C-alpha cells in the first residue's frame, strides 16, 4: 500500500502564533481517516495548509503527496494533482453559473495535467449523471455558485465537485456543520459512493455523529496542534463518551 499523504513533523504559524507544533500523519490510498478534536486544536489549519491557503507560514516539517513535496506546489497545482478540500463554509460567487464554474475548473485541472478538455456534450452528460445521484436538481446548476443555496445544497455542491474532479485525496472540513440529519445523510451517501481503493479521505469533525455515516478506518485525536492519539473507529465512540478533556493534560 502506497502512502498518499505524509505529513511529517509539521509546524505552522499564523501571525506569529504557532498553531501546529510538529504534526505527523500518514494516509494511504483507499483509507478513510477521521481527525477529531476540540475547537482550536488545529484541525482546520491542517486542512488549509494541505490545500495551500495563503496566510499560513510553515516553519518546519514537510508534506509529501504521492512522494512529491506538496509545499512547493501552488494551490491550483495541488488541485490538479488531486488534492480536494470540501469547505466548511463554501463561498458564493454571484453571476457565475454553477455549470460554468464546474466546467471551467474541471478543464483547468485537465489542462494542467496535459489532458484534453471535455467536450460540451460529454461534460453535460457527466454532470447530469452525478447531479442526479446526489439529488441535485438541474436548475440548481444554472444558479450562481452557491448563491441562495441552503446549507445542505452547498454541501451537496461540494460533493458534486468531488465526484466530478475525481481527486485522489479528499479533505472534508466539518462537513456536518449546519446540516440537519437528512441533509447529512444525503451528503454522506454521496461521499460513500466515492470511496475507492484509489482514493483516500480525511474527514475532519467535532462529532462522532458524522462517523456513523462515513465510517473511518483510522481515527486521530488532535489537541493543541498535534495528533495525540490514533486508533480504529471505536476511538470515536470512546471520545463521544469521555470528551476531549483527557487529552488536554496529555498535550
Amino acid at each position, binding site marked *: 500500500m502506497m502512502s498518499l499523504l505524509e505529513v511529517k513533523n509539521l509546524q505552522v504559524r499564523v501571525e506569529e502564533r504557532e498553531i501546529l507544533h510538529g504534526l505527523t500523519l500518514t494516509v494511504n490510498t483507499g483509507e478513510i481517516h477521521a481527525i477529531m478534536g476540540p475547537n482550536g486544536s488545529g484541525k482546520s489549519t491542517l486542512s488549509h495548509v494541505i*490545500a*495551500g*491557503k*495563503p*496566510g499560513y507560514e510553515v516553519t518546519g516539517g514537510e508534506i509529501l503527496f504521492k512522494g512529491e513535496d506538496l509545499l512547493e506546489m501552488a*494551490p*491550483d497545482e495541488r*488541485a*490538479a494533482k488531486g488534492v*480536494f*478540500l470540501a*469547505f466548511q463554509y*463554501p*463561498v*458564493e*460567487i*454571484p*453571476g*457565475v453559473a454553477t455549470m460554468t*464554474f464546474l466546467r*471551467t*475548473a*474541471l478543464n*483547468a*485541472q485537465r489542462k*494542467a495535467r496535459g489532458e484534453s478538455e471535455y467536450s460540451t456534450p460529454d461534460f453535460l452528460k457527466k454532470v447530469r449523471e452525478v447531479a442526479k445521484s446526489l439529488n441535485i436538481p438541474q436548475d440548481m446548476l444554472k444558479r*450562481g455558485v452557491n448563491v441562495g443555496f441552503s446549507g445542505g445544497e452547498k454541501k451537496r455542491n461540494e460533493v458534486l*465537485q468531488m465526484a466530478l*474532479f475525481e481527486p485522489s485525496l479528499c479533505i472534508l472540513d466539518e462537513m456536518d456543520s449546519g446540516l440537519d440529519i437528512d441533509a447529512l445523510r444525503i451528503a454522506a451517501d454521496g461521499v460513500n459512493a466515492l470511496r475507492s481503493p484509489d482514493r483516500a479521505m480525511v474527514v475532519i469533525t467535532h462529532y462522532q455523529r458524522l462517523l456513523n455515516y462515513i465510517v473511518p478506518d483510522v481515527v486521530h485525536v488532535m489537541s493543541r496542534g498535534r495528533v495525540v492519539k490514533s486508533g480504529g473507529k471505536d476511538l470515536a465512540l470512546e471520545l463521544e463518551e469521555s470528551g476531549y478533556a483527557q487529552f488536554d493534560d496529555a498535550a
Partner: protein
Amino acid sequence: MAAVQETVDRVRRIDVDQYRYGFETVIESEKAPKGLSEDTVRYISAKKNEPAWMLEWRLEAYRRWLTMTEPQWARVDYPKIDYQDLYYYSAPKPKKQLASLDEIDPEILKTYEKLGIPLREVAVLEGVVKPEGEGAPSGRRVAVDAVFDSVSVATTFKEELKKAGVIFMPISEAIREHPEMVKKYLGSVVPTSDNYFATLNSAVFSDGSFVYVPPGVRCPMELSTYFRINERNTGQFERTLIIADKGAYVSYLEGCTAPQRDENQLHAAVVELVAHDDAEIKYSTVQNWYPGNSEGVGGIYNFVTKRGDCRGNNSKISWTQVETGSAITWKYPSCILRGDNSRGEFYSIAISNGFQQVDSGTKMIHLGKNTTSRIISKGIAAGRSQNTYRGLVTAHRKASGARNFTACDSLLIGDKCGAHTVPYIEAKNSSATFEHEATTSKISEDVLFYCIQRGLSQEEAVGLVVNGFVKDVLQQLPMEFAVEAQKLISISLEGSVG
C-alpha cells in the same frame, strides 16, 4: 463562412489602412502644421473637400472654443494639455510592414493569444506582409487572401444596406452627398457650444460614421458587423451621427477588443443619436485604448461626448459600454427623453487597473411624459486606479410619470485603488419615481481561494469572479462581442492581485 467573415472583420477593423491603400490611389500622408488656429480648421476642411457651410460651422465652433475653459469637475488628474503643441490633422499612415510573425512584440502576441485570435489573423492584423515559405513552423502561415474576401463581403453588405435604403458612410462623404441631412442633424443633439471637448471636436473633427435608417426600416444587419469591416482610421477627433427615422431600428457597435495604440494622446469624440417616433437605437462600445505603462506613463486621454435624443414618442435609445482602456476616461453617454413614453438605457462596465482614471456615467434627462430610464453600472477598480461613476437623473416639470431605476455596483481589487459614486438626482415633477441602489464590495480572498482550490489560476479566478459581477451588462452586448469582451475583462485585470 463564419470563420472567414471573422477574419475579414478583424482585418478591416484594426489595420484597414494598409489594405485600403492597396485599392485606393490617393494617399495623403502630410500633417497639418502643429497647433490650432483658424488656419488649421481651414486646412482640415479643405483636405476634406468640404462645402463652405461646413467650414463656417467649424470656424464658429473654433471661435467659441477660444472663449471656453477646460472642465475641472471630473475626478481625474493629468498634466495641463498644451493645445498648441498638438497635431490636429494627419492622414492615416499604413502600419509598418513586418516580414514575419517573429518580429511582433511577444507581449502583444500573448494578448492576441489570450483573446483567442488565431495566429494567421494576428499576422494580418499586425501587418505581416507575406506568407512564409515552405518549411515555416506549422500554424505560422499567413492568410493574405482574407483581404480579397473582405472586399467581396463588404460589397455584399453594401448592397444589402442599399436595398433597405439605409445610408451608412463616412461622415466626410455624407457632408458632400447628403448635405441637407447633415445640416439638419449635426450639432442638434450636442451643440457646438456644448462643452470644451465637444466644441473642440466640432472645429477639428477628422472623420466618423453617418447612419440614416429610413422610416419603418429595421436595419438588416448589426451595423457592428459591417462596421468592423469598413472602419477606417478616423483619427483622434471622431464624429458620429446616427438617425433612426420613424419606426426604424438600428444596432451599432464601435471599437474592438484588440489592443489599440495611437501616437495621438488626446482623443475627443462626439457621438450624436436621434431617434424619431417609435424608433430604436442600440449603441455598443468596446474601448481598449492604450492605458499607459505600468508606471502610469503615456496612455490615451479619452474625452468623449455621447448623447442620444429620443426626439419622438415611444422612441428608445440604449447605450452599452465596456471601457477597459485609456489612461483617462471622461465619458457620459446620455439620453434626452423628449418624446412621451420614450426610454433610455445605460449599461456600463468600466474597468481600471494600473494608474488608469475613469470618470464615467450617464445623464438621463426626462422631459416627456411617462418616460423611463434604466442605469446599470459596474465599476471595477484594481491596481492604483481611480474609478468614478457620475450620473445625473433629472425630471422636468412636465415629465409626469417619469421613472428611473439606477444600480451602481463597484468592485475593488486590492487596497490601493478607489471607487466613487456620484449620483445627482433631481425631480421637478412630484409624480416621478426614481430608484437608486449602490453597492461597493471587495473581491474576497476566500472566494479567490475557493476557485484556486478547484484548479483555477489566480488570474483565472479573478477573471471568473469579475465576469460574474458584470454579467448583467455583458448580456446586453451583441453576441459576437460578448465572448471577446469577457476575455478582454480578464486580460485587463492581469497582475491586479497578489
